[in-house]
Every structure is written in structure tokens, then in C-alpha cells.
């Protein structure tokens, strides 16, 4: 069992600033025409923000291997649901 890890307050403030900046960025990016890259940029930023929250605010970075496995499991199963469903829709009108 892991002993508790106390994250310094400064880390929380730093993460907070980055999150606000990323929010501003994602709104700004949406007003530029990047063609097909618009949704990609939006999702990359969202994913980055979510990772920061998980790793620092939720102490994911300092948690046991088991909890890391749980997080990866969630991503894996979400991935299955999204990709296997889309596999149908993206190939429906082929050939």
C-alpha cells in the first residue's frame, strides 16, 4: 500500500493557470479555419486538460499501479465502444 503523497500548493496553482490558458486557446483556435484539423485540435486540447486534472488534481501521477490500471482500463473500454461502433458507420457505404 502506498503512503500518501502531498502535492505542494504551487503545483496546483501552476496546473490551474495552464488549464485556464488552454481553455482560452481552445476557444481562439475554434475561430480559425484549420479545415479537418479543427476537431482534432479541440480534442487534443481537451484530452491534454483532462490528463492534467487526472494526473495532478486527482493525484493519478502519485497513485498505485492498480489505480493507474483502472484509469487505463476506462480509456481502453471507451476506445472499444467508440472505435467498434464507428467501424460500422465508416464502412457502411463501402463497396
Amino acid at each position, binding site marked *: 500500500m502506498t503512503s500518501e503523497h502531498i502535492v505542494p500548493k504551487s503545483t496546483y496553482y501552476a496546473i490551474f493557470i495552464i488549464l485556464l490558458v488552454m481553455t482560452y486557446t481552445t476557444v481562439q483556435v475554434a475561430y480559425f479555419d484549420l479545415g479537418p484539423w479543427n476537431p482534432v485540435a479541440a480534442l487534443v486540447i481537451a484530452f491534454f486538460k483532462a490528463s492534467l486534472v487526472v494526473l495532478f488534481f486527482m493525484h493519478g501521477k502519485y497513485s498505485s499501479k492498480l489505480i493507474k490500471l483502472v484509469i487505463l482500463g476506462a480509456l481502453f473500454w471507451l476506445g*472499444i465502444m467508440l472505435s*467498434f*461502433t464507428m*467501424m460500422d458507420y465508416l*464502412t*457502411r457505404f463501402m463497396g
Partner: protein
Amino acid sequence: MTTAVLPRENYLNTDYRLRSWLLTTDHKRICILYLLTITMFFAIGGAFATMIRLSLVNPAGTLVSDETYNKLFTMHGIIMVFFFLVPSIPATLGNFLIPMMIGAKDVAFPKLNLASWYIFVTGGCFTLWALISGGVDTGWTFYTPFSTLSSNTNVSLAAIGIFIAGFASILTGLNFMVTIHRMRAPGMTWFRMPLFLWSMYATSLIMVLGTPVLAITLLLVAAERVLHLGIFDPSRGGDPVLFQHLFWFYSHPAVYIMIVPGMGVTSELIAAFSRKRIFGYEFVAFASLAIAVLGFLVWGHHLFVAGLSIYSAMVFSLLSYLVAIPSAIKVFNWTATLYKGSVSYATPMLYAFGFIWMFTIGGLTGLFLAALGLDVHVHDTYFVIAHFHYIMVGGAIMGYLGGLHYWWPKMTGRLYPEGWAKLGALTIFLGFNLTFFPQFILGYMGMPRRYHVYPPEFQALNVLSSAGASVLGIGYLIPLVYLLWSLKYGPIAGDNPWGAKGLEWTTTSPPPTHNFAVTPIVTEPAYNYAGEQEESRVG
């Protein structure tokens, strides 16, 4: 402690007031609460099945109206799947045994465990309310747009009932996972755990990962009916097939929620009644996990004729064949365990044999349905009905009854009459095969499922099936009677009537509230009947 008295204090007699039962956090008492509840649901679901089989004796369907028939099979499906099969082994035997098998005092979240039961009962009440106030006629699958735009029965109410009961399932799974991870007694390593625990872990994984998706899907159906939001509405460009994707993302793995616990029980029974370590322990353990994971990749085989892209169908078919492999591994390992064993023919073992028979037939006919070109013909026919009843009724209920008989002395402290029990097991086995085997033929002949009236050439097989059902019905009554009888008149069982291994047999029967007088320390692997010293060899 093998004298003919029950232990002075056990979990059953600590307190007799109703309050002490309704507010209990003891996992063993919660097991009993579930046992009573699901037995009631089984009786209701069984009554519907009886009506269905009675109606199908006559091809013109004169016994009930079309509407009534449709409600009968819908409520039969909903009650049996969500309120009997899904909770059956996990919520009863799982609840009772997981803490005992790992040497813990209770599950990780005892209050949550009780809350799960209340949630389950609340969900059940909603569903029963839907049933009493007019019924539901969508089939247990709730396919859109019929469920959202066409049916004028209590669909939302039933969907909400299942939504609520789903949370009981999620929380139970969560509880079990945390318990197995964090509450094991000293020395109880993963590879010393009985295989029942591996199967319960795999089951919990499916409950936790799959059920939320069912919940949101049913919520969307209810939202579409009540709030007129349109997610699946074809007239707005919605795709009804999306519902089927989301529904089967849960409901295919849900089949494994029903059968994997049965496999776990069978592993215990085979080991205990041949007094031998399960052949290829690690393979059987990992097969459970493999089924849990692969089970999530095959839902598309329910959509082969539904409008799935043919390329997608190909991938799903391939993966469906892969999930058959761990199941095959288990069957072969169980069979090989008997080799040079000390095989007893006690009632639970008969159920284990029955399970293997049913599961083998159910599993092999699954190959027919995974076969794309063949599924085109047999999809949505009685072939499918027969197949999943072999798995879910033949398999899961054989496992459930086998487990119930095996651990009955532990749960109640008393033995049941062996002769009657054997007769019951045999009756159920014969009745079941007589009911459902003819349905394979009916299905290949082309009789579609959910048919109230049907062409007369299918009558002979339907009559045969209904005759089998009456045998099966009597078969289910036999254990009900003698198990109740045994509560008062059964001989005192003693701590370990089977001479079985496992921590649950080291404590008294019935066990005390905290299971063990002293927290056990585990020094040997499961099923160490031969009394071997632990060695490093694996596989």
C-alpha cells in the same frame, strides 16, 4: 465440531427481529435477502414462461390475445434476465462466498452492499408496477423505433426499473472488485484463490464496465418517449441501429455475467467432488478474464442482419470465434480434472455434469450463430432461443442450483435429502433438454422468435417442447420443496460435510457473523487435496 448440533451463535440466530434483517450489513444475510427476492422473481418469470409454452401448443394461438402474448414474452425476458439471471449467482453465492473464500470479515463496503439490495428491490418494484399497470410489449431488447415511437405500453416505467436495478449490479460489481483486490487474508495470493473468485472478478468487471452503457441507453429511450428528444428517431435522421450497438455493448457481455459465475461454481464442484486440483488452474483462471475482455468485442454479431456494414460484420464474426476458445479451454480442463480423480456422484456434481453438457451444446451452437452466412438464416428464429436458453437457463441455472446445493450446508447448517435431490437434478436435466432441443430444429425449419401464431407444420415440435417444459417446471419445484423442508428437518451438516478444501469450509456451519474466529493465514494453493508442499512450478 462434527457432532449433531448447530453452532451456538451464527449469523442466522444473532438476532431474529425483522429489523435486524432489513438493516443488516452482513454479506451472508444480504445473500439470504437476495435469495428470497430472486426466487420470487424466478417464480414470476417462470409463470410467464408457462403461459408462453401453453399458448404455443396451439398454432392458432387461441389461449391469449396477440397483445397479451407479446407482453408475456417481454416480461418473461425482462424479469428473467435483469431480475433473476444477472443477480443470481453473484448476488447470492458471490455475496456469501467472496469474503469467506478470501478470509475476510465482510465485503469492502458492507453498507453499499445493503444499499445495492434496496436499489435492486426498488428497480424490481418499478418493473412490477409496469407489469401490473398494463405490461410492456417491446421484447426485453427494447428495439427502437418500436419502443420509442410505436409501442403504447409502459415502456418508460420498465426501462426506469431496469435502469435502477442496473445500479445495484454496478455497485455489487464494484464492491466485489475492491473486496478481491484489497480484503484478502494474509497469504491469499491471486494464484491461491479458488477459481470461483476469478470468475466473480471477471463477472464484476463486466458489470462495472457494461451496465452503465445499458443505463444510458435505456435512459435515452425513456427520454425519447417522455421528453420527445430524438436520438434514435428515423424521421429526424436518427439511426435505430445505433440503439442496437449501445444495447448490445452491454447485453452481449451480460450473457457472460450470467454464465461466467456458473463456470466458477462448476470449477469448485469439479474440484471438490473429484478431490483434485483443477487441471490447468492458470488457464481456467485466465480464461475467465479473457472471456470478460473478449466478450466486449463481439456485440456486433447480434446485428448481422440488422443493417451493420458487411465489413464490420466480418470483424465481429472473427472476434466471436475467438471468444469461443477460452470457453473451450475451460470445458477441456474440467474434463481432464476428472482423470485420476476421486469422483463422487453427490447431487452438486450431477449439476456440474449437467452444466458441462448444457454449456457444451449451448457453446457449440453459438458457433452457428457467429457464422455469418448461416446466421442470416437462423437469426431471430427459435434456433437463437434454444441456443441462449442452453447457456442462460441450462448453463447458468445448473451452475446456480449446483452451487446452492454444494454450499447449502454451509449457509443453513443442514443437509438436504440426497435421494430427492438426485431425482430433482435428473428431472430438471431431462425436462430442460426435452424443452429446448426441439427448438433448434424448429429454428432451422424457420420458425421466427416471438411468434404467437405459426404455421401448423411447426406444431409437433412445439408440443414436444411444451411437454418438456412441464417436466422442467416440476423439476424446479422438487428442490424448492425439499430445501425448505431441510431448513427444519434436515440432518445437521457439520463444518465440512463434503471433505472439501477452501477457507469457507474451515469455519462453522452456519458461520458466525464475522466468518472466522481468527483471521486465517493462507499457506497453500486452492484445491490442495493431495497435501502437496507449495512448489514454484507454474502450469
